[in-house]
């Protein structure tokens, strides 16, 4: 019996080997040279630098409205501050993926948008008037997520929040300090890009430390972790055995205490930002060389390769539709019908697979990070 099995197995193995070798020959055709620096130029000049400028401007507005609010805690100053916070948070969605250069060096992403925030630690920091938030343990005590807690979470209504600022100046001091840290860091990155831009564009090779490899890895990592997991998957319970974690949504306190349901807006903005980067589209709508261009180039040079960019673009459409179908209030969405949330997660996951596995392989870019385990 085992002999028969062995013989059959050998024959089949030969079949498989024969069947496979005929195909892999086609892989031998060399990819024609593509000028990667065109992508880098477009990304730097038309997307990254202008988007950082937008964010910085928006942060300046928030900083000055925080100053007014702290000086005069009342509904009118509060409302302006809230609106400026939301505007900055939306602008942030367009730069969170650029964890490169100075931003990476100063852990910019961690200091702006770590959530859930550490309520206890913020409360202690407020009381002890702690200004130096450079310890990594304070990532979750600052940033735009920290401001969310400071203006929507220290109490459960607008009046009560304002009352706290009126009664105890320490709240205002802490809030102003958060803005000051964010603004300083942002400004530092903006200035750095003035000189970093050239070396970023010139590093157009294909090593793990060249710009396109790094920025593409950052983008895919961001999409997998910052967008798919943090905004949708974790709160929907994907990584906690189906137990939903509503307090892990982005901008939790604004929804939780009924100030404004913004989590969906932020997720939508992040998805558009990701699609724009893939397309090479700037905030003015102009389109330039991009990952899509590169994929198209490879397909045009060798039609036996997968024509991936239309697939990814239609993935984006489906993901946007799935996110669009969600309730404005993610807490309600998760509590009432988490299936829709999981559906959005699945649509985002399709993009992760197509970018991380198929796109990076077509572009011969190595993945430079380990999978986030989720536990």
């Amino acid at each position, binding site marked *: 019996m085992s002999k028969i099995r062995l013989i059959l197995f050998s024959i089949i193995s030969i079949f498989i080997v024969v069947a496979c070798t005929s195909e892999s020959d086609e892989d031998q055709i060399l990819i024609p040279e593509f000028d990667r620096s065109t992508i880098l130029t477009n990304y730097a000049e038309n997307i990254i630098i202008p988007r950082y400028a937008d964010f910085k401007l928006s942060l300046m507005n928030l900083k000055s409205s925080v100053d007014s609010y702290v000086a005069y805690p009342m509904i009118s100053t509060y409302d302006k501050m809230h609106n400026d916070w939301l505007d900055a948070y939306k602008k942030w969605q367009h730069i969170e993926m650029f964890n490169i250069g100075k931003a990476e060096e100063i852990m910019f992403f961690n200091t702006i948008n770590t959530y859930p925030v550490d309520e206890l630690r913020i409360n202690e920091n407020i009381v002890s008037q702690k200004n130096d938030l450079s*310890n990594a343990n304070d990532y979750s005590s600052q940033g735009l997520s920290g401001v969310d807690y400071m203006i929507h979470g220290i109490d459960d209504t607008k009046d009560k929040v304002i009352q706290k600022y009126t009664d105890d100046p320490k709240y205002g001091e802490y809030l102003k300090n958060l803005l000051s840290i964010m603004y300083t860091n942002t400004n530092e990155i903006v200035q750095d890009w003035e000189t970093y831009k050239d070396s970023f564009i010139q590093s157009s090779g294909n090593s793990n430390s060249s710009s396109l490899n790094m920025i593409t890895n950052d983008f895919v990592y961001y999409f997998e972790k910052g967008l798919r997991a943090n905004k949708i998957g974790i709160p929907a319970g994907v990584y906690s055995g*189906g137990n939903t*974690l509503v307090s892990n949504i982005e901008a939790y306190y604004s929804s939780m205490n009924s100030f404004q349901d913004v989590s969906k807006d932020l997720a939508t903005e992040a998805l558009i930002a990701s699609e724009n980067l893939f397309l090479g589209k700037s905030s003015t709508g102009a389109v330039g060389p991009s990952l899509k261009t590169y994929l198209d180039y490879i397909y045009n040079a060798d039609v036996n390769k997968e024509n991936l960019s239309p697939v990814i673009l239609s993935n984006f459409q489906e993901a946007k539709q799935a996110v669009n179908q969600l309730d404005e209030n993610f807490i309600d969405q998760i509590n009432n019908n988490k299936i829709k949330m999981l559906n959005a997660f699945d649509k985002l996951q399709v993009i992760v697979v197509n970018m991380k596995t198929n796109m990076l392989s077509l572009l011969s870019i190595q993945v430079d990070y*380990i999978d986030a385990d989720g536990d």
Partner: protein
Amino acid sequence: MKNYNSKLKVCLVIFLSSLFISCDSDDDDNIIDVVAPATYEFLRDGVSTVSYSGQTTRLNQVDAIYNALNSKADDGSGAQKFYTEAEIDAMFADGAGFMDASLNGTGKKVRSKTSAGCSAGNSATQAQFDDQIADFTANVVSAWTADASSGIAGKLTDATRSIHVNKYGHEIDQTFVKGLIGGMCVDQIVNNYLQPCQLDSGTRTDDNTNGILSGDKNYTDMEHKWDEAFGYLYGQVADAKSTDLSTGLSSTGTTLFKYFTKIEASNQPGIAKIVFDAFKMGRAAIVAGNYEVRDAQANIIKIQLSRIIGFKSVDYLEGYISKMAAGNTADAFHALSEGYGFIMSLQFTNDGNDNPYFTKAEVDEMLAKMDDFWTVKDSDLTSMVSQIKSKMNI
């Protein structure tokens, strides 16, 4: 890619049909023919004889304790909640005080099933779990917002995560629950319910052979003992009885099954089918009264489930080293905490000859070497890794 797939499929079809042809002549020599059903559903007079609700309860209790050991509400809501030692002890030892009322007062308790196999229980190991609860509530909770450093409990953050650790850098929800994966789940299966000291205890063999049922239940004692083993692995899987669990598993819970699905997806694809087939075949053998086949299946399960502990011990120790090298201390300590728990679990493995791959003494020696995460030597960890790899053949 598509072409390749379809060619592969054709090959697979040919290959599979060859298996059918080659297997037919084979099974003749067993005295009592045992045929495993497609799923783990067994009926007597049209009514299911499979029951493992007690195991499901205990696995759910562990999930709740896991949250409590991270100062999260034990109902899994994610809300922050700080527990006292007495509160977590009650959950662990008495099956009481859970937010989910269905977990309270059921008579099902985790502690009494921890390091408590009928062949080799050990109360000293049980006490190690108590100590972890005490350490967490006394030292970690009180330092929740403090900064951790060598010799000082507190919070530890890097670019990837924040954890709360004891003075040696242990993240106790990890050490505790990963310890229980061996200490309860694997131990209860491989050193308890699949053992003659459970299956054949008292009159169970004769009762099973003669179809004498357990009290007013629809199952024999032996059938039920086997099902309880099944429950410690699959107890949180929805519709486990009516599902083909040999493939396409999706992770659930925080204990053995979660890591079983990880091993299936990475280290050893196909383990899910081997284990599921063995559980079905062994149960069918009990129904048929063929105890040789039953014990052969038990051995398969003992070895395969032990491999999960081996794989994860190795993965997390190696993970610690690479995460430290990447400068992510919190992520590295998180991994080493998981590794610490899986190393603890090694003493509950079973090599198929009813010996653990590593004895309690050997495990305690390893734990002593890695006890202080702030000073642990990579060379000690790599030597543990190679020991585990060679002894467990992974």
